[in-house]
């Protein structure tokens, strides 16, 4: 009969093993995949570069906001004994940021140029 600490060790070892195998297999795989582009990558034109950088900046602003909210959340847990109302409020704001800016939910009702 396996006791609970042995089960924990086995489970932990197995999980780490699978994770490492996955990573090793992937890194090995990338050695054999030659990066090829049917239409060779060309330098981005200035407009495209600006648009891309604008999106990058938006992503950075969102992650900073998420980081601050996560710190606030942790402070609520430690300093305010984990008040459910405040924690729920912070979680909803964080989820809203991800859904609005990272998942771009507005694309659903915005008429824009699509891609295949």
């Amino acid at each position: 009969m396996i006791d609970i600490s042995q089960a924990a060790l086995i489970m932990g070892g197995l999980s780490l093993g699978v994770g490492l195998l996955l990573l090793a297999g992937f890194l090995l795989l990338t050695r054999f995949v030659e990066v090829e582009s049917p239409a060779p990558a060309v330098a981005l034109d200035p407009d495209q570069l600006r648009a891309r950088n604008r999106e990058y900046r938006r992503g950075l602003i969102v992650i900073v906001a998420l980081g601050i909210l996560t710190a606030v959340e942790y402070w609520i847990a430690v300093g305010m004994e984990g008040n459910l109302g405040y924690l729920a409020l912070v979680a909803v704001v964080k989820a809203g940021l991800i859904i609005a800016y990272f998942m771009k939910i507005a694309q659903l009702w915005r008429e824009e140029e699509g891609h295949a």
Partner: protein
Amino acid sequence: MTVTAIPHGHAEEHNRPAMNRLGLWLFILSESMIFLILLTARFYLFGTSRPEGLSQLLGLGVTVILLLSSLTAYLAESSIAHDDRESFLLYTLLTIILGTMFLAGVVGLEWPQAIHEGIVPQRGFGIAYFSMTGMHAFHVLTGVLLLLVIYWNGARGGFSAEKHWGVEATVKYWHFVDVVWVFFYPALYLLS
């Protein structure tokens, strides 16, 4: 008034991205029901109580890793949307590494620690803890596999600014997994 007939095939092609997105969001909505049920069960069974055994600091660590992976996924999608394939591959690889780190953190570190502290899957809070983190970890694993597929296809030149629905869908799914954790993290680690 003039009426212009749009050939059937052309109209279908024109609407495809919108239909794809709608389908994906419906899929995400249906998936979120599973997690909503788990979250409701956790509060129904245990109220706002939480055992002392779970490490808040470890929870914070894996949360930061997952949030960062959302940023790299977003950057990967933005890169390919502007035909920057090298950045796309780099950020996708970073997302895969961060996702794997999250998995190793939850399943490899937190689970054994929780069991060591007496939080076991068979009884008490452990039932909620392991079912919630287990279901979430399974979704992270499938997300990592999908990211591997888009990396593989991207490395072989399969995506461009005009054609990257696979990337968009995978990245949206990855963000969804992040949103789920945004609610699970306080429910499991932060409530008093």
